[in-house]
């Protein structure tokens, strides 16, 4: 790992994911994520200098579909799982940063 996992980095990633963490959570997750990264870092032992980066785990290409309409969801079904709607739109807290 070139970048050490610090509490600041955990806070930044949480902010990017729109998660609000309490100070004790930052501390706990920093420790847990450090463990995860340490585990994954075992892969660093492999010399991959001459290995092409993998674009996709399966050796599949050109999985395409024809430009044909398929049935979708009714509006009722589309909105069914939303925390809040007005029956036509999804409702979310006011977005500030555009105007």
């Amino acid at each position: 790992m070139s970048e050490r996992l610090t509490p600041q980095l955990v806070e930044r990633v949480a902010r990017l994911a729109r998660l609000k963490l309490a100070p004790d959570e930052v501390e706990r997750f920093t420790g847990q994520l450090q463990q995860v990264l340490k585990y994954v870092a075992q892969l660093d032992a492999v010399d991959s200098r001459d290995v092409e980066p993998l674009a996709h785990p399966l050796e599949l290409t050109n999985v395409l579909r024809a430009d044909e309409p398929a049935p979708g969801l009714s509006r009722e079904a589309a909105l069914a799982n939303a925390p809040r709607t007005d029956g036509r739109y999804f409702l979310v807290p006011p977005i500030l940063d555009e105007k």
Partner: protein
Amino acid sequence: MNATPIIGLEVHVQLLTRTKIFCGCPNRFNPDQPNTQTCPVCLGLPGALPVLNEEAFRLSLRTALALGCRIAPFTKWDRKQYYYPDLPKGYQISQYDLPFSHDGVVEIGGETEGDVPRRLRIRRAHLEEDAGKNLHDESGRGGDSRVDLNRAGTPLLEIVTEPDLGSAADARAFLEDLRLLLTDLEVSDCNMQEGSLRCDANVNVRLALDDGGTATTPIVEIKNLNTFSGVEAAIEHELARQIAEFQRTGRRFGDPGAEKETRGWSAERNETFAQRGKEEASDYRYFPDPDLAPVTVAAEEVARIQERLCEPPGARRRRFAGEHQLSEYDARVIVSQGRQFADYFEAVARACGDAKQAANFVTQDVLRELNARGLGIREFPLTSDVLGGLLARVAQGGITVKSAREIFGELLAAWSARAEAAEDGADVDVGELPGEAAIERIIAERGLAIVNDEGALEAALAAAIADSPRAVEDFRAGKQQAAGAIIGKVMKQVKGADPKRVRELLLKKLA
């Protein structure tokens, strides 16, 4: 202070497919029926699997090739992570380090005397999905924002240029040609009002300082420009603002605290304004999307698409100016009407052998009638063969230009009358278009054929002069307009006489 603008554009184009890019939902602008064009894939529901629309990819290849881009033999899909309510998955499927095309070039300008053509390099074009639409509470009371996901998953082609544009006018010229090209290729409807063509502009300025050095101002990205005039005005304004700010603060590109800034454009106030910077906006944490297989493109397929590409608008204007000797203005008007219209002009020009006359008719008479009738050139009742045949008669001296206009109007009037009768239930064939026979009939009925029988003209002229002693006297006394009365008499006598020839003969007689 000598200032060199440095301008690059990012253009987003919605593609004209029937369905969305990764699912079978309709790709249709439909803001009146929000959230009626969705499915588990474009809503980002768990377990849904996106599959690429082959037509979206084909249209993208066509566009990239028309922009002179190279097509990557292998391309993949990446997730661009950010949180916004119009992005249901929490990431946008896009292309990061292996876009399907790159390194194109187009030419701008060089169409008027002394104007040196400029090259604009295209950095890349990649394919991605559009987001949904947020509607903000406009009441100012801080009410909820509403989200419509009909647009989520619309195929979106992003075209990124290098910062090669040297003026706001060139930026606009490129976009106008791009719109023509995209509609000619039938890749997008480019309806800017509906957001099918949107543009961001990256702008800064290189300044030659009084001390002989140079300075470059910090880059500003102007977001969401959706009119051609808006693009030009926003860039003009931004260039002036940056120069003034540099004179005030001396801040340069690369100085600490002078990171890339995002600004909006207000057409009402005619100025750009600072947008609250998204914190760590560039931290999109791209990674390959495991849900989508990469795409490979064979060289033969590229060659096949390349072969069928239409001529780009700029090249066509230059060819019209050269091959057909059109003015820059005529070439611009004709090409700006789209490919079908320009094809029509070329067919008329070929059929009549007089491109200038064809250009006059097409840019004036045909365009006027299309606009008045709300028709496209494909629905125009006079085929290029018929109009070409009519104008060939003018070119060969068979009828006058004035007569050609009269016949043109008559053919259209007769066609309209038939269409109206059919609407009223009469049994007429509206599919039958005016043809050669109708032209011949009108020429015969109205005696429009130019009479080149000099004997008949001489005789009629002699009679008219004998009959108009007063006019002859006036004319000899220097009243030019007195000739009109005599010419009129000849014209009445010999239907289809060429007034120019009659005047010539008269002047010779009275000299």
